[in-house]
């Protein structure tokens, strides 16, 4: 469901630095593709503003006081699953980003990106395209290798040969278009592979939680 130019993308900006929020707001509004309908300085506020405004995209920082970004993303994914979350974070926070993606973020962008790149990423995430960076791809690869090295219970999905190939190219800095050219597939197919990888990652998280619950006996209904 792609919106036409007449209907700008409704965005909520979450960051604990007001200067940063102002900058992103003016960048996005200048680009003409988006309008900022709310701001929040903290994860708790972010959930409240998101549920009140029901934006198309939430632009989320991860390191914030009181309620961290990952927790806010998990709550948003649960209560407003159609709202897409784009993580905007500083470098060196990839481990947090991996968690964020596992609980439902659909993209990740470095704070050092240009205003044009941020605006593009908002549009892409809104269109359902996974926005991925090379470092995150490296982390995701490690995550899948870690999981497949251990005993994986039947039914928990691993990566296919092709998905592995695509992910390695993302880690090497190739764009979806370049990946498509190199593997003789369409850009859309390359994107689909990445989206499936993210879905599997989120499934892992769910399996993890399920295993934890079963271990602790939380799955049993109280007598």
């Amino acid at each position, binding site marked *: 469901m792609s919106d036409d130019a007449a209907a700008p993308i409704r965005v909520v900006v979450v960051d604990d630095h007001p200067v940063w929020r102002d*900058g992103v707001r003016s960048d996005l509004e200048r680009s003409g593709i988006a309008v900022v309908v709310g701001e929040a300085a903290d994860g708790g506020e972010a959930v409240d503003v998101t549920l009140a405004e029901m934006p198309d995209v939430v632009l989320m920082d991860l390191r914030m006081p009181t309620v961290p970004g990952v927790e806010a993303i998990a709550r948003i994914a649960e209560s407003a699953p159609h709202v897409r979350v784009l993580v905007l974070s500083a470098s060196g926070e990839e481990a947090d980003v991996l968690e964020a993606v596992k609980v439902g973020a659909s993209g990740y962008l*470095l704070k050092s990106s240009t205003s044009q790149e941020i605006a593009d990423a908002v549009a892409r995430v809104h269109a359902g395209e996974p926005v991925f960076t090379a470092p995150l791809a490296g982390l995701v690869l490690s995550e899948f290798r870690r999981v497949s090295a251990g005993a994986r219970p039947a039914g928990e999905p691993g990566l296919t040969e092709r998905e592995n190939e695509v992910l*390695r190219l993302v880690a090497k800095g190739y764009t979806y278009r370049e990946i498509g050219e190199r593997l003789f597939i369409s850009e859309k197919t390359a994107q689909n592979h990445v989206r499936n990888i993210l879905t599997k990652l989120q499934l892992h998280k769910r399996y993890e939680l399920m295993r934890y619950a079963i271990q602790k006996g939380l799955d049993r209904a109280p007598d």
Partner: protein
Amino acid sequence: MATPDAVRMAEPGRRGLFVGILAYRWATLAWMTALALISRDRLARGGLALVVLALVIVWNAAFTMRKGWERPSWRWVDLGLSVALLPFAGYVMEEGGAAGGVPFFATSYPATSALTIGAGGTPATGLAAGLALSIGLVASRPVNGIGLDELDSAQWANLVNGIVYFVAAGGAAGVVSRSLARTAAERDRAVEEAARERERAARLAERDAIGREIHDSVLQSLAVVAKQGRELASRETVAPEQIRDLLEVAVEQEHALRDLLSHPPEEVPPGAVSLRTALSAAAFGVRDVPVTVSTTSGAWMPAGEVDEVVAAVRQALENAARHAHSSRGTIFAEALDGAVVVSIRDDGVGFEFDEARLAREGKLGLLRSMRGRAEALGGSMDVRTAPGHGTEIEFRFPRDGSGVDV
């Protein structure tokens, strides 16, 4: 002095010594049994001799199966038994036999007790065991009614021979055992020392790599923040995005520094350096284009090789920054079976990869140098590029784990 027996027993050389003594023990026991059976008729108390012999065999079976030589208490009980056997041997023999004229079936077997104690202890305990046996040997004469003053010179020589034999056996086993233990301790120390040295070299290499890159970059960024901050401060009004740019520089540096200085999340074996750390440091030094580094877990290289790897990667980055007109660079390192693959990619102009033509135009120098570094480590280099399609340089370094404790 208490000896950490369990630790010393683990030493293969000493285990060999004990096995040798055990073989000797059984050989002499067999000899003793054969003698007793052959001369049974000439023994005064043949029946009793066989009963005691059977008990000694049972004790030796237990001693062998329970590895009695590894336990100090068993060793001393074994010695006590041997000491007691000496006067007993005289007791079962015919009148006057204890003086040593006839085959004396307890002689060679008791020496194994002194050997065992010497091997399990020190030369001093070995000598002590030999002396205890000697006392048993000497006592065997008066106990069986033969005064020492009644012995003739041949019988005296026989007695002294026995004493020298027991004492020398115990002492010698102690000396051999001590020198084996010392050799083992020296070897352990040397191995430990080498491991520590490797780890120290790895840490130094890592610190070096970080230190080299941090200095210039952080200082430069601070200078930029100070200069632009002053400029902004002197203006009447300042647009938020101008402050944001400045904030960005500071935050980027803060995170990059934190990332660089914090311990790498992945465990690397001692003697190895995390490629994430080493490559981040290398990327940190590139200022013209943003370079991101990503690695999978397990991407490390032995400390002795990581400098060459980083040098090759830095040349590739230099190439990307200077000639490619790229807007960004990506380094990706992953551990595959027995190798580490490092890829450096830029989104720049790319080029026609025609080695002959590049050589003619004198543009092959850098590529050759990079390939040389890779091949010096037994690795290889691949170039994938085309005009307008960026450049990817991929190094493959073999990693057999030598030089690190995996």
